[in-house]
């Protein structure tokens, strides 16, 4: 069955991004919005808008029944979940199947399998993909025994989680019992699953992930890796492809490991296999798989020329998966996530109304955004307002274009993290490439001006 009408169950820049691919493919768009997003830019772009619930996510973007009902009632053939919200909840593909709607993403079983981090670890080991030393911690005694074996520092992680919640760093063994309790409580509250597990902590690791596409019948291709090491509290800020400074051998075995993992679970649709890379030792370890399109997918699109949303739709449509030999990468791409947050004030979210905004344009520049002058940034959702992506024949040219693009971007009415991005892109360590996840902390230590709070002036007077 050919997909002719898609209901998008998401908001913000990714809703606008999916609409763009639908336009190219001549597919009609029904946009499911909360009452806070009725007047947003994506709603203006969609063919039809249905209000599925109140501003509260639980009533709207997390309301699977209302979303599937809306899809059926508006004659949509398929639902695209975007990222976040219901994108990795098995309930959405389950309800879709019951209602005869195509879910553009993996199967419910695959979502469950990779969502359980211990099961995912086990699958990785079976697929001969290296995992960080660690394992289940079902009792405090078992946890202490395991912690001795894998040695500190270590991380207590949520079996059902991700995104940094339920994650605790343990530097001394005697802190372990307390951290286990804290992590379990946080995980229980965030994911409804209090199980935790332990992993050895790799301090100077780099976060590198591989984009894969699977046909659900066992064939998987990879579209190269992305380095997402510029993070603060596990929230990514800058991403790039290819990962700078990896040896050809490490790069290739990383990509092959991701393919083996996805093949092992017969993965369907677009997904990302995340690794932590110990660059000094030339070693890498499986972290988790994200069973969705990711925020940072545009850097991969920039170097491959492949529209990943269109690939997801084609796979969901049963039109098949392209061949690995068709994937050619050219050049480098770097992305900055522009958030409505105050980088001088502990990255505090800064919702409100955007007064004026000017986005950059030019050769090798792409801007994914839903924000125009007058747009409202509601306080109910994440603070991402745009992604600015620059590409070029090599990293230096991509970086030069990105610096120009960030410099040409102006936002007023809400705080943004543009100043952080300017500082990061100007920093010699970032310019040299291959930073680890400690980069943001070092940058703040080098640049005290980044933490000078914007007070009314009295503080500096």
């Amino acid at each position, binding site marked *: 069955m050919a997909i*002719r*009408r898609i209901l998008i169950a998401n908001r913000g820049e990714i809703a606008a991004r999916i609409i763009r691919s639908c336009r190219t493919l001549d597919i*009609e768009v*029904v946009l499911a919005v*909360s*009452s806070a997003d009725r007047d947003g830019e994506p709603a203006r772009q969609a*063919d*039809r808008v*249905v*209000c*599925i*619930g*109140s501003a509260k996510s639980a*009533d*709207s973007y997390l309301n699977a*029944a*209302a979303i*599937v*009902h*809306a899809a*059926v*009632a*508006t*004659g949509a053939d398929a639902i695209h979940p975007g990222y976040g919200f219901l994108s990795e909840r098995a309930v959405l593909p389950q*309800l879709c199947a019951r*209602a005869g709607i195509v879910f553009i993403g993996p199967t419910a079983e695959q979502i469950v399998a990779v969502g359980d981090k211990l099961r995912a670890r086990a699958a990785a080991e079976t697929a001969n993909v290296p995992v960080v030393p660690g394992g289940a911690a079902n009792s405090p005694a078992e946890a202490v025994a395991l912690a001795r074996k894998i040695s500190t520092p270590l991380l207590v992680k949520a079996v059902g989680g991700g995104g940094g919640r339920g994650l605790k760093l343990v530097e001394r063994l005697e802190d372990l019992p307390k951290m286990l309790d804290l992590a379990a409580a946080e995980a229980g509250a965030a994911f409804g699953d209090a199980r935790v597990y332990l992993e050895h902590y790799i301090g100077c690791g780099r976060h590198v992930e591989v984009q894969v596409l699977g046909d659900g019948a066992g064939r998987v291709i990879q579209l190269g890796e992305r380095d997402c090491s510029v993070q603060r509290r596990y929230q990514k800020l800058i991403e790039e492809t290819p990962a700078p400074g990896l040896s050809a051998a490490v790069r290739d075995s990383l990509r092959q490991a991701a393919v083996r993992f996805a093949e092992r679970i017969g993965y369907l649709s677009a997904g990302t296999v995340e690794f932590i890379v110990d660059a000094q030792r030339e070693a890498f370890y499986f972290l988790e798989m994200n069973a969705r399109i990711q925020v940072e997918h545009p850097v991969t699109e920039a170097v491959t020329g492949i529209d990943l949303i269109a690939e997801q739709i084609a796979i969901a449509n049963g039109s098949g998966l392209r061949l690995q030999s068709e994937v050619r990468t050219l050049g480098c791409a770097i992305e900055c996530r522009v958030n409505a947050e105050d980088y001088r004030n502990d990255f505090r979210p800064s919702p409100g109304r955007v007064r004026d905004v000017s986005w950059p344009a030019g050769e090798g520049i792409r801007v994914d955004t839903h924000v125009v002058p007058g747009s409202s940034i509601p306080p109910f959702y994440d603070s991402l307002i745009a992604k600015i992506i620059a590409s070029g024949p090599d990293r230096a040219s991509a970086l030069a274009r990105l610096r120009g693009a960030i410099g040409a971007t102006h936002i007023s009415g809400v705080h943004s993290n543009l100043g952080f991005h300017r500082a990061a892109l100007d920093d010699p360590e970032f310019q040299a490439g291959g930073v680890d996840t400690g980069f943001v902390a070092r940058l703040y230590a080098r640049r005290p001006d980044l933490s000078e709070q914007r007070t009314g002036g009295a503080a500096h007077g």
Partner: protein
Amino acid sequence: MTLTAADVAEIMRLVEQSKFDELNLEIDGIKLTLRRAGASAKFAPSLMTPPGRLDAVADAADGTNASAARCETAVPADANFRDITSPMLGTFYRAPKPGSAPFVEIGSVVHEDSVIAIIEVMKLMNTVRAGAKGVITQILPADETLVEFGEVLMRMRRDP
């Protein structure tokens, strides 16, 4: 002269009691179109939208709203009137089951807890209550059509 809400309610009651499915009335440049709910299949789009452009859906919706809009010219916005909005997205049902009498009609007297409609979401039936004492003066969506969160289902005149 202008049609008052009471006049409209009275006309609706007459139509309701008659054997006619539709009434078109024109007085002093005010056009009033009344149709009995469920009278015409073309007027009650089914849950499953037939394949075709989205315009088809929009047209049906416009048809509903056109008569509603005309009614609105006759029913002035007033503090004595209250909108009953849909608490969720779903399919609007006027009656507890097919073939049975609707919960309310134009002119029905309702109390706070009176059930005025059902909203079905994925086979789950949710009742909607009037929320105030008064008289139903207008019913906006056609029976068995999609209503959105916050959409006005009915208007009522509050009892003083």
